[in-house]
């Protein structure tokens, strides 16, 4: 899983309602429709400017608040291929891995809007590189089970392939 994308920078405590408003779910839960409203209350121009392959670089506690999984699938539908953050809310972190979205807990403070970043998995850890300034940032290792789910592409393919959790710990 190697990623090369453009950084889109967000601050601390971006909650899932900021990613996609709960109120929007009254119309549909189809992420391909909801992506038009991604970040509408905190970054109204994001939906129009996001490009396939962009990478979010956020501060602490990304994805806090509601555990709604649509917050992950809407980001994927918008073209986001990875989220880097100083820390994640545990529910968003799980939901991301369960949908095969790469999430990397790392120090994002040096990443600026528009930076070209690459993300490379090496064993259970991700290495992030800010290409133009040759910065190397190492991510917190993923627990083995999360790595396996991520490698399968999410919890659905993981369980389909394994027929259950079995004794994978």
């Amino acid at each position, binding site marked *: 899983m190697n990623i090369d994308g453009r950084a889109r920078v967000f601050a601390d*405590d971006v*909650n899932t*309602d*900021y990613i996609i*408003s*709960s*109120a929007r*779910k*009254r*119309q*549909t*839960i189809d992420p391909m429709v909801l992506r038009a409203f991604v970040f*509408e*209350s*905190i970054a109204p121009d994001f939906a129009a400017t996001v490009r396939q392959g962009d990478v979010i670089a956020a501060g*602490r*506690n990304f994805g*806090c*608040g*509601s*555990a*709604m*999984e*649509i917050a*992950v*699938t809407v980001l994927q539908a918008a073209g986001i291929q990875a989220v880097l953050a100083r*820390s*994640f*809310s*545990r*529910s968003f972190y*799980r*939901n991301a891995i*369960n*949908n095969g979205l790469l999430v990397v807990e790392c120090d994002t403070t040096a990443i600026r809007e528009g930076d070209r970043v690459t993300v490379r998995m090496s064993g259970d850890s991700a290495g992030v590189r800010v290409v133009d300034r040759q910065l190397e940032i190492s991510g917190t290792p993923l*627990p*083995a*089970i999360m790595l396996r789910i991520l490698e399968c592409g*999410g*919890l*659905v393919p993981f*369980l*389909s392939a394994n027929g*259950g*959790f079995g*004794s*994978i*710990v």
Partner: protein
Amino acid sequence: MYGGTISEQILSRRCGRQVQADDVAICAVDRVIGTDGSGPMAIDYFEQMGGSQLFDPARVYFSLDHYAPATTPETQAFHARIRTFAARYGATVFDVGDGISHQIAIERGLVRPGDLVVGADSHTVTCGALNCFAVGVGSSDLAAAMLTGQIWLRVPQTIRIVLRGRYRPGVGAKDVGLALVGRLGADAANYRAIEFAGDALDGLDLDDRLVLSNLMVEAGAKAAIFPCDPATAAYLTRRGVDRGSPIAASADARYVEEVTCDLPSIAPQIARPHSPDNVSLLAHCAGVPVHMVFLGTCTGGRVSDFHDAWAAFTRAGGRLAPGLQLVLTPASREVHDVLDADGTLNAFVNAGAIVTETGCGACCGTSGVIPGNGMTVLSTANRNFKARMGRATASIYLASPAACGAAAALGRIPEGL
């Protein structure tokens, strides 16, 4: 041999081996809860996983609480999907009007001490008040739990919160909860569990504990658990629910942090826009004009909350401030029926309040009343993110039911109670 925190012991029992903080465990779940918010996506995933039966239909239920009532054809379709799925596989559905998923769990004896409860709603942690390990998850984990009866969990480290003494007059569990969230911050308990302890527990009834467990997810907590004590036992006896398998922390249980909170030092609190950890003294916001007061949700929508709000409303003059919208959403049918029988709802309605269908109501903009542009809302809820109630230009403050009741009469945030 090491005993363990409540979380370590519950998860050890449910995975069949001794586990400690940071271990990963595959655990058998006691109760699986979905809602109309998380359920439709979980049903998609269940089918994609090849699911053809629930691991145990008697342990799975859905609550139609987020779109109550359904106000669009699409949300009607979500409900129909859940009803059809549940009928096919034998799960229980609590339909529109029955109430919020975790409130139903507590009222109907669907969770018991020592249980591992998995709910696809972040406020599932509320059930920790009854000595459960209750954790909020998304739709994938809900689907997997419905199919396999299992969930993988990293055993959390635990923060121990020691509550001491008794409340001052005018202060309640909501003030203590907000004070703790403000002190800890929005991510202090991330990946971690919280256990409550201390002599103050003798003075906290189940309603108080539900509020505290509920609010701890605003500090990121994975679970927020009370010990099973005489107050817990008395509640279960009154409900005719068996005591389950209570778990107490061992004397040698290891905590990552201990926080002490002296209740007598807590004055009425308020969370200012746009984060539940943006907490200050209520008095610091005194005089801010309020256009809408919302009484309800899984934090502030129980019988005692409406009684507190009514008492404060009466003390503040008992007449609705001109032009103010007062919206009541009982957390469940049972709460509604008690308030109906004792005259509280009627009194509020006669004063000019709107009573909506029970459920999550206006809290997350999915049903109920949506505030207008530029409105200031004072709410008994747990979240005040920008646009949370469906309008980005509204400002949401969170406070106790008493503060909200007083504000409904005054038309502004009260100085004290």
